[in-house]
């Protein structure tokens, strides 16, 4: 075989492999991406909640994107307790002022950041929430204080549409 012919073969071989690899990737991606949230799931991105009936010291739990959201109307003691905590005592330092813009209202995903259970109200060593699954304690600002959870409970995007209605998402 002449040297020229071998080079021609090499080129065909490389080109075929390259086209084949790109083609395979182009087919594999839709197969993987079909498992991501579909258009109908994404469409349920926001929900409006009427909070007029909620009195201080009580929590309303609503479902948003299949997850519970805690809306807590906090008492003055709870606010004071949350605001006097020193940052160095926190596992995931976040100021209560940043978590609850309006101190009376705490809105957060009712999902433990450990493995996704729903923590219980008014329980635990810090008068906030306690996750029964693996024993994580949260304070009155929903911040992780003790246990295996690595992060504070997540504050979703929300706004007061009017005095009585919160729009989550």
């Amino acid at each position, binding site marked *: 075989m002449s040297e020229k012919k071998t080079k021609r073969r090499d080129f065909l071989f490389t080109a075929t492999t390259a086209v084949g690899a790109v083609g395979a990737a182009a087919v594999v991606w839709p197969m993987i991406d079909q498992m991501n949230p579909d258009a109908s799931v994404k469409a349920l991105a926001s929900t409006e909640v009427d909070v007029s009936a909620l009195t201080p010291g009580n929590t309303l739990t609503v479902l948003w994107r299949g*997850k519970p959201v805690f809306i807590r109307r906090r008492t003055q003691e709870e606010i004071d307790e949350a605001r006097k905590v020193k940052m160095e005592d926190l596992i995931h330092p976040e100021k209560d002022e940043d978590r609850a813009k309006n101190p009376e209202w705490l809105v957060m995903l009712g999902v433990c950041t450990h493995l996704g259970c729903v923590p219980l109200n008014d329980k635990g060593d810090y008068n906030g929430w306690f996750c029964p699954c693996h024993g994580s304690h949260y304070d009155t600002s929903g911040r992780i204080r003790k246990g295996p959870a690595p992060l504070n409970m997540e504050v979703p995007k929300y706004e007061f549409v009017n005095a009585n209605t919160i729009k989550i998402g």
Partner: protein
Amino acid sequence: MSDHDYRPKSKVGQWFNDRLPLLTLANHLTDYPTPKNLNYWWTFGGILTFCLITQIITGLTLAMHYIAHADMAFESVEHIMRDVNYGWLIRYIHANGASMFFLAVYIHIFRSLFYGSYKAPREIIWIIGIIIYLLMMAAAFMGYVLPWGQMSFWGATVITNLFSAIPFVGEGIVTWLWGGYSVDNPTLTRFFTLHYLIPFLILGLVVLHIWALHVPGNNNPVGIDVKKPSKDTVPFHPYIVIKDGFALLMFMIVFAFFVFYAPNILGHADNYIEANPMVTPAHIVPEWYLLPFYAILRSVPDKLLGVVAMLSAILILAVLPWLDTSKIRSAVFRPLYKQFYWILVADVLILGYVGAMPAEGLYLLIARVATAYYFLHFLVILPVLGFKEKTLPVPLSITEPVLGGSTNLAAARNKESKIE
């Protein structure tokens, strides 16, 4: 394989076999030379094959009545229990069959650990076995989600959330697994699909597992290489077939006890409450066969490290053939290993027990000690033991200690190496 020269007796058989040598395969399986000293711990391979077939048949029939939809799954399972002819029986066999499958596989694995069946030249058999075991856990977990009860839902939530521990891409992976922002209908339908698929993957791997086994042949209680065929072997049929069949009957009595007298004792009452994403059950526990790993997960106070520890506890088994440095296979001739073996058995049972208890106080302490010991056994004790241990003399053949009256007689007569 020494039986390639097999030739069927009938003309039709010869004609067929020349075109597709299935009869040669059948002949290989019947004549397959088996060590004659195999004890009843060796019957669990056959029992496991029975378990797999049972799960596939009952699973197929359940799938004819089950509806994989978040709004209808729970009701369709109740429909199977109350309306479908013998639906209760089929479902109870399937649900308890999973537990029986794991009971048998744990005995099978611990038999291998005792007699050193994972060592050269059987490493590939062992690794295929570990892959089968991983697939079994995946199938069992996803199957438990399908009735869409409280334990289904929250078990699925906790286990899929394990992936969120992966740095950077974890959250994206969890959303991808769910097909949404929480465990919901898309999760249920894909779990049903995979639960249907995995048993057939296992079936394929079982064929490879047996194929790999038939290359070196079975290990045996004495753990020495056996010449095949020889005075030390018997043909698989009828000797092993009868023995396996008898053991299978005994096993089916235990199986039937659970199905007919205690069908819910291994399950959790909370799973008869329909899934509710707003309320987590007070105490989430996985099925009994996953408890030791659950205990390891919870014993580590850090999320990522807990997940890493749990996965390592399983994956460490895959490299066991290289962690165990001892040349001697059977624990019969390893006086120290035998003791550590039983400590490991106790350790795993303790982990299983604390896995079912709340993760606090003394239970947590016990779980931590037991987890540490588990890794110590595989990473330190086994490698060191291979160099330090004084092993007992091993007989030259299975027959020798019986006929030759050698000095190894006492060791070989040990209760694990009875000769039929």
